[in-house]
């Protein structure tokens, strides 16, 4: 135990003396937490819309006015015919969408009861194109029911099913409420994953491990001496992040904080095991950095932070389930937004604990004092 105490003391001394590492560990994640949620917003505003109106009727003008007042679109041009210039506008990225009203739009709409309109989207920015045409569709559908009401008011309205949805746990669809907890998980993952994977490698590279290995220090003492400091850093980083979430974004976890920290504690052990494992396989810090980077990238993109895991193809779901980050992001959102209880997250907790055992066991086996 005395040896472990000294190992820890040494590790903390080294961390606090490293003037380059310290800000990276504590300041950088906080700055990122202040910037990323504000930027990573999927609500798309200012979609540039070019309108071609062959009809130029009151109805088409009404619809355009409705679109313009929705706040999502910026009408960049309004033409009465379809000039080639409109195509150029898309090509030069001045317009993201074209909405075309055909000739006799109003007339047919009233007479025949239906009339297609044409929407063309610049799909280079897929999200913008997809969401833009979606918004447009919704507005048109809305407009559709309005004129129906007007035209068919005398006749009997056929009773149809109307969909009304409400968003539970995040009633205003506040994007930050959803992103901040996820980003916080990712930042803690990055900081702890990187420093843990670089640490033993550093001792290898500098040669100090040679000197440690000829001492009677036990394997578990040495590895615990490495794990505990980073585990504490992870805890501190997470706490700072929660504070920012509360002070800046006004996110107050609905669920039990103790439960959240209990999960974090297990998660960090799994994550540090992952870092140590990379560490034991690499010979230089550069190698370890790139391997860790490779995995962290996968964690970022596959963990359900940006892309919902349920939307992934089945093979991708398998990968998503193989990363502990997925579970933590899930649990984090569940506890913070929904106030989930222990029984709701116990399965995830068990899986992350499994990761912790496997990764650390593997790292310890692979860290050999001889050879």
């Amino acid at each position: 135990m005395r040896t472990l105490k000294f190992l820890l003391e040494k590790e903390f001394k080294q961390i606090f003396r490293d003037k380059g590492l310290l800000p990276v560990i504590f300041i950088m994640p906080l700055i990122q937490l202040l910037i990323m949620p504000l930027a990573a917003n999927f609500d798309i505003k200012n979609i540039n819309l070019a309108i071609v109106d062959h009809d130029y009727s009151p109805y088409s003008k009404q619809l355009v006015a409705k679109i313009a007042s929705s706040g999502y679109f910026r009408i960049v041009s309004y033409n009465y015919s379809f000039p080639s210039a409109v195509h150029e506008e898309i090509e030069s990225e001045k317009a993201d969408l074209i909405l075309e009203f055909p000739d006799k739009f109003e007339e047919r709409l009233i007479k025949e009861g239906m009339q297609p309109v044409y929407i063309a989207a610049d799909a280079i920015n897929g999200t913008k194109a997809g969401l833009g045409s979606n918004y447009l569709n919704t507005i048109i559908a809305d407009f559709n029911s309005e004129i129906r009401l007007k035209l068919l008011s005398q006749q009997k309205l056929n009773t149809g099913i109307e969909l009304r949805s409400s968003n539970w746990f995040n009633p205003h669809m506040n994007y930050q409420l959803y992103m901040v907890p996820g980003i916080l998980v990712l930042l803690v993952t990055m900081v702890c994953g990187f420093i843990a994977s670089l640490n033993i490698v550093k001792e290898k590279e500098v040669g100090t491990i040679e000197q440690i290995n000829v001492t009677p220090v036990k394997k578990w003492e040495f590895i615990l001496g490495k794990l505990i400091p980073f585990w504490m850093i992870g805890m501190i980083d997470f706490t700072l992040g929660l504070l920012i979430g509360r002070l800046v974004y006004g996110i107050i976890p609905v669920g039990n904080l103790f439960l959240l920290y209990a999960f974090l504690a297990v998660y960090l052990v799994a994550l540090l095991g992952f870092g140590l494992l990379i560490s034991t396989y690499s010979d230089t810090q550069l190698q370890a950095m790139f391997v860790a980077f490779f995995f962290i990238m996968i964690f970022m993109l596959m963990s359900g932070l940006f892309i919902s895991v349920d939307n992934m193809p089945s093979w991708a779901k398998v990968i998503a389930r193989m990363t502990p980050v997925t579970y933590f992001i899930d649990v984090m959102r569940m506890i913070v937004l929904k106030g989930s209880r222990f029984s709701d997250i116990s399965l995830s907790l068990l899986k992350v604990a499994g990761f912790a055992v496997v990764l650390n066991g593997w790292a310890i086996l692979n860290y050999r004092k001889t050879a």
Partner: protein
Amino acid sequence: MPQQNSDAVILNNITKTYNKLPAVTEISLSVKKGELFGLIGPDGAGKSTLFRILTTLLLADSGTATVNGLDVVKDYKEIRRCVGYMPGKFSLYQDLTIEENLNFFATLFGTTVSANYGLIKDIYEQIAPFKTRRAGKLSGGMKQKLALCCALIHRPEVLFLDEPTTGVDAVSRKEFWNMLQRLKEQGITIVVSTPYMDEADLCERIALIQSGSILSIDTPAAIKAAYPDKLYAIKSAKMHQLLKDLRAYGSCYAFGEYLHISGVSGETELLAYVKEKGYTDVVLKEITPGIEDCFIRLLQTGGAS
């Protein structure tokens, strides 16, 4: 203990290969208790590999080795308690101070600095004025002293020093060897490696190593005495041409400002040969061979000892 009187270090037919490249082949040697033993050989001869095997950091492919009667494979835990090792590369924590490094390693060995202060006192006092300075900011000589202190802090019975004087200035080298002599007087067995042939004379016994094989093991005096024939130092204004000409005549190599030549039948014959080649200004004298001469000789004859 039955091994009480046996040798401190025994290597028996040790072979180690890295990716099919042999590092050491069939090395056998023994070091007596309390001896100052030198492994002398150029870079890449396999000295560090031997150290790593003896300090239980590396497993040999074949052969056995014992330190203090303990097997390096089976009893590696006990060995780690009773040996001190100073790697060729400075391997202490550069971001910890002298004092912190020393305390840290003392703790790892389950002891304290004060318990064994007597052993390191002479050495530590030289670096004590800088004890709050970080190890990375020390000069080469001071780093070596600190590394030696850390290797000694648990009062090891056998001390392994891998090229402790490489990259250290001449004065510090001399000081370092004086320190080793004093440690030897305390009864510590010391195995030291060096690429510097002039340091060989400071050891009690030496093993000359080249390409993973031992050329010769004996006391420096005996190795020099075993030099088979006469050795001459010769010099002239046209050294380069002289070297070329003499190579056709005997075994000749440059050595400082002189050329050393051996394998000639006698001084007069040699002089006659150079006269014939047209040299008028040659200085010729017979010399006693040094370790380096013996080493070169052994290299040429393939280590017939």
